[in-house]
């Protein structure tokens, strides 16, 4: 329940925001959406995005085709590529380089995102948090993507603002992808692709290119053991013993590795299997590699069977996404390593703690409405030294594992092509986080309604209110909610 003070803040803020939106809508200069692909095909962002950066059916098909139009791409390209060798050079291979191509113009786009934050009052005992924070985060990202011919595509995005002026930049995704390489094995079309580099795992719903102003809580869930040694089971000597789980892996962060995947059957079935470092976008910290796999099946629910074969369904006001439901499952397995070189327990060997994540997901699309969600479970083995005296310990024994479960469900509705309403629920149940004092109950939940306005096809204003779970006030028996709202501006050019 929103209290009266919170409600009055919400309403007064909503009025201010509405006024601002009207002003922007009335005064914003006419802009043309021209990121890399818009330039290449001389088409609007809305061809692929009904609410950028979320991809519509056509955008998904475009991505799956290696950033090419799914049919007759050559006839749609307005910006002719530079041929790196005549097509007939294929006949001369291997006596000559296999022909390729470069995009005709530099395939670069820029994206700016700046978020205005309003925070509810946070007890000072928990650390100072300003009531308002203007444009945090404040990011400027370079996106380069395209194709090097019919079967090779690439993507690189880099937030060049991450470290401020002259600061170190952070790469998001940066990969090369071989599309439909299964044709050499006479496999069905698009049954086998490969990509390598740094990439977001084939998550059910992207976090890197989400429409939301805040990430999904379950994808940001960390596995860290109890920080209070006294709570570690088996540990008879709390002063010298500690739980060990401290997994750097995050689901929603790009990983480095290689991924095989495919989407045969007109893209209705998808599969992927990735081998990654498991250390996010950092260098490997252990020898073992992790495995992530995902499958999904889309059921097209269009009544007209002939329409199901089309990239998009036809509606009275233009193409629209198919009415469909997609269900999927995913799993991740790895072995985290700690105490390498005796960094935690000098006399003991390296700790290897297997961990896994698995879950299921769905997405339902019906005309102007979409509903999607994920359920996920995480489990990290947690060990401690096998004796109370670390100096005499010869190894480790398992103790209470670090586990969590949760997910999210989100709905999206287009009131107009430019006005989209969102509502989302996030829930994460983590006994370990609760024991560490992160929340009043085992489950941390968040309710986030929002509105997004496409001022132009490439300019968006997004509003999100967050009603969060209760947290304990430090040094007290009271609790508070870190509610707030965010107004995001987002544009690409």
């Amino acid at each position: 329940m929103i209290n009266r003070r919170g409600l009055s803040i919400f309403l007064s803020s909503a009025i201010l925001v509405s006024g601002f939106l009207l002003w922007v809508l009335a005064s914003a200069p006419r802009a043309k959406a021209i990121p890399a692909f818009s330039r290449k095909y001389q088409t609007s962002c809305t061809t692929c995005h009904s609410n950028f950066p979320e991809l519509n059916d056509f955008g998904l098909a475009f991505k799956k085709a290696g950033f090419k139009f799914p049919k007759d791409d050559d006839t749609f390209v307005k910006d002719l590529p530079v041929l790196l060798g005549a097509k007939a050079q294929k006949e001369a291979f291997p006596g000559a380089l296999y022909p390729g191509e470069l995009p005709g113009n530099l395939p670069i786009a820029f994206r700016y995102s700046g978020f205005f934050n309003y925070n509810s009052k946070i007890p000072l005992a928990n650390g100072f948090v300003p009531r308002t924070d203007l444009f945090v985060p404040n990011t400027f990202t370079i996106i380069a993507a395209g194709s090097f011919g019919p079967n090779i595509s690439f993507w690189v995005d880099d937030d060049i603002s991450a470290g401020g002026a002259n600061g170190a930049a952070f790469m998001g995704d940066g990969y090369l992808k071989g599309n439909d390489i299964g044709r050499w094995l006479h496999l069905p079309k698009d049954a086998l692709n490969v990509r390598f580099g740094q990439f977001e795992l084939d998550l059910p719903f992207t976090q890197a290119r989400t429409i939301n102003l805040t990430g999904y809580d379950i994808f940001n869930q960390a596995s860290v053991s109890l920080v209070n040694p006294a709570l570690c089971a088996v540990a008879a000597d709390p002063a010298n013993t500690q739980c060990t789980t401290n997994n750097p892996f995050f689901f929603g962060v790009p990983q480095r590795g290689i991924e095989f995947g495919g989407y045969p059957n007109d893209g209705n079935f998808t599969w992927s299997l990735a081998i990654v470092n498991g250390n996010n976008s950092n260098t490997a910290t252990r020898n073992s590699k992790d495995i992530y796999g995902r499958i999904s099946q889309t059921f097209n629910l269009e009544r007209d069977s002939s329409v199901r074969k089309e990239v998009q369904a036809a509606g009275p006001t233009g193409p629209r996404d198919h009415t469909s439901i997609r269900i999927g499952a995913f799993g991740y397995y790895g072995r985290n390593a700690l105490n390498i070189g005796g960094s935690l327990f000098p006399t003991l060997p390296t700790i290897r703690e297997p961990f896994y994540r698995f879950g299921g997901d769905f997405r339902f699309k019906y005309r102007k409405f979409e509903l999607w969600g994920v359920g996920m479970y995480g489990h990290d083995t947690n060990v401690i030294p096998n004796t109370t005296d670390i100096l005499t310990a010869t190894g480790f024994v398992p103790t209470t594992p670090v586990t969590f479960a949760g997910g999210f469900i989100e709905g999206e509705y287009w009131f107009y092509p430019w006005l989209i309403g969102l509502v989302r629920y996030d829930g994460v149940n983590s006994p370990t986080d609760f024991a560490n004092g992160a929340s009043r109950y085992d489950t941390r939940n968040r309710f986030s309604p929002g509105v997004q306005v496409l001022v132009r096809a490439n300019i968006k204003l997004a509003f999100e209110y967050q009603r969060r779970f209760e947290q304990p006030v430090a040094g007290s028996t009271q609790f508070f909610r870190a509610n707030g709202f965010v107004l995001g501006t987002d544009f690409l050019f």
Partner: protein
Amino acid sequence: MSNVQRAAIAGAIYLAALFLAGMAWAGDIKGKVAVQGIRSAENIAVYVDAIPGKKFDAPAAHITIDQRKMTFVPRVEVVLAGTTVDFLNSDPVGHNVYWPSVSGNKKLAHNLGTWPKGEKKGFQFNDQGVASLLCNVHPEMSGYVVVVATPYFAVTDKEGNFDIKNVPPGQYTLKTWSEDGKPVSQSVNVTGESVTVDLTVKK
């Protein structure tokens, strides 16, 4: 005038009449090529396929393909089997001309070598098929010599129009070849007048 002379003159008139009549009977095959999934309808070869029992002598005149501004000009040339094509280099840089196969037959691959501006080298194309012209100095250069069995052929313009002239009356098979499209085959009946044929080439 002797009887022999009279007979010779009459015979010549008869033959001339026959020739003129033959000229009058020859027709044109005109038409337009539409494309699906291909960027342009230009440079598509349209030709009458081999006529059973009929063999045509190769022309004595040479055909010239120029190398200008690092492109083969024309990009697509159709020739009757046995025709000699001269490859001219008009660029101030050296060019090489080779083809790795003729319609996939690598035994017919040939490399003419490299030569400077103003010079040309000839090659007689005796084997039917398509030779993909390449330059190993400038790998983006591309051209095609389409070697066919009859002298009845044309190459489409930017709009896809073609015009094959002076085709004797008869039933023929009209074929196409294009860089990006699948070949098309269609039967055509030439009766002495212009015949219009519309074709569609798909990727």
